[in-house]
């Protein structure tokens, strides 16, 4: 199976972050993570990496409901930053709202919408999409 070099998790729920990392580590899919607890923190760090020409994550797992800057606002700002590398963005949310799901499906920069809890099978699908 392919591996993810560097994955980014943007989620304010520490348990979910812990679990997501564990699943990927145990399945030996990814060992390197960047974790941010809200959209603003992630945007600041990631845009600095892009500008500095440094290594950016291959995959971003993005929560929607977060304090300060939520997932939608992050998406809007982040996708405006020009970069050569393709970043695969997945929304990982517990929202079952049809509005949220359709909104995500209609964004060309979003690869898929995953309903929490995240499980190994979803991670495997992500790896297959790479």
């Amino acid at each position, binding site marked *: 199976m392919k591996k993810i070099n560097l994955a980014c998790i943007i989620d304010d*729920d520490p*348990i*979910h972050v812990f*679990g997501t990392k*564990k*699943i990927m580590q*145990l399945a030996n899919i990814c060992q390197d993570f960047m974790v941010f607890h809200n959209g603003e923190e992630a945007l600041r760090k990631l845009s600095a990496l892009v500008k500095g020409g440094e290594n950016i994550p291959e995959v971003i797992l993005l929560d929607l409901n977060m304090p300060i800057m939520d997932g939608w606002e992050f998406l809007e700002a982040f996708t405006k930053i020009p970069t050569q590398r393709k970043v695969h963005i997945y929304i990982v949310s*517990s*929202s*079952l709202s*049809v509005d949220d799901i359709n909104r995500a499906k209609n964004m060309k920069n979003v690869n898929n919408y995953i309903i*929490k*809890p*995240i*499980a190994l099978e979803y991670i495997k699908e992500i790896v297959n999409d790479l």
Partner: protein
Amino acid sequence: MQDIDDIKRIRIDTAIKEEQFRQTFEHATIGMALVGLDGSWLKVNEGLNTFLGYSNEEFYKLTFQDITHPDDLNKDLQLLEELVANKRKNYQMEKRYVKKNGQIVWAHLSVSLVRDDKDKPIHFVSQVQDISENKKLSETMLDQNRRLLNFAYIVSHNLGSHTGNLTMLLDLMVTENESLKNDEYFSHLLTASTNLTETVMHLNEVVKINIQSLDNLEPLNLQQYILNAISHIQASITSTNANITNTVSEDIYVAAFPAYLESIILNFLTNAIKYRSPERTPQIKISAKVKNEQVIISIEDNGIGIDLDRYGTKLFGMYKTFHNNKDSRGIGLFITKNQVEALGGKIEVKSELQKGSEFKIFLKKSKKVEPQTEPTPNN
């Protein structure tokens, strides 16, 4: 002698009637008034004084137009005009008045017109009933409904993230430490977490049903959906030797959401098989007829039946089960009922213990017929 008696009697009768009217007018708890053709108050009773706060003298200086809420005036005047033009005998409307203290109140107004013997209009008789409390109540109810829905949505969403975390953590624990499976505490935790997840899922189903809008109902071919459901449960039909008679005509279209219609039919068919009698070969009859603008689907079985006297009112409640069937979960009928009602329909049930049950599902007939509509695949 005879004539004088008659005249006397008529006079007495009239006097009694006038007195009755006066008494009724004055002591009625609702507001009553005689109103001139120009809208001026000619006579008002105490009920109206109390309701709107104006004294008799104050009333007689005003017209009803002066104290009617501007947004309700046109409608009132138009109805009044129709009354004078003899296009109607009376009219009723809900309208707002401005009280003496400036407060706006809702009233139910009922107006008729008194004419002389040459049919010339003389004055109006108005009855004004205070309905502010009712209005407040129905607004409160609407508001509470909205809040309840919002609450249910938040609860299901937030519970969802916590139960999700629990499931995930327990999964990970077993992955890292296989021997935990033999730990009794752990296995109970696992069961509790699975049950919690299921409950939250059901809650989500119910919330989802309540936020659907009826605007996008689709014309769906009933027969196709029934055949689809039958093929879906073919395995249990075969294993129970169940006999299904389907006499639904091919040209019936109902107005529904595909996922709901699928789930409704599937649920009733599964129930019919699940609650079969061990003493008989299951016989299930599916039929449908169109009546007025409705499609009535009937699903009849010869199963163990339901004691409706005992359980009738609880039949469609959440988590009510009536049989010792190991698969009974009680959520099926509850969700089904919610779905049928969300589609603007209803369910009727007839049942006799040890004889069987008949469920009748009333759904809206689809107005436009699009034969190319295919059932969506089950997912």
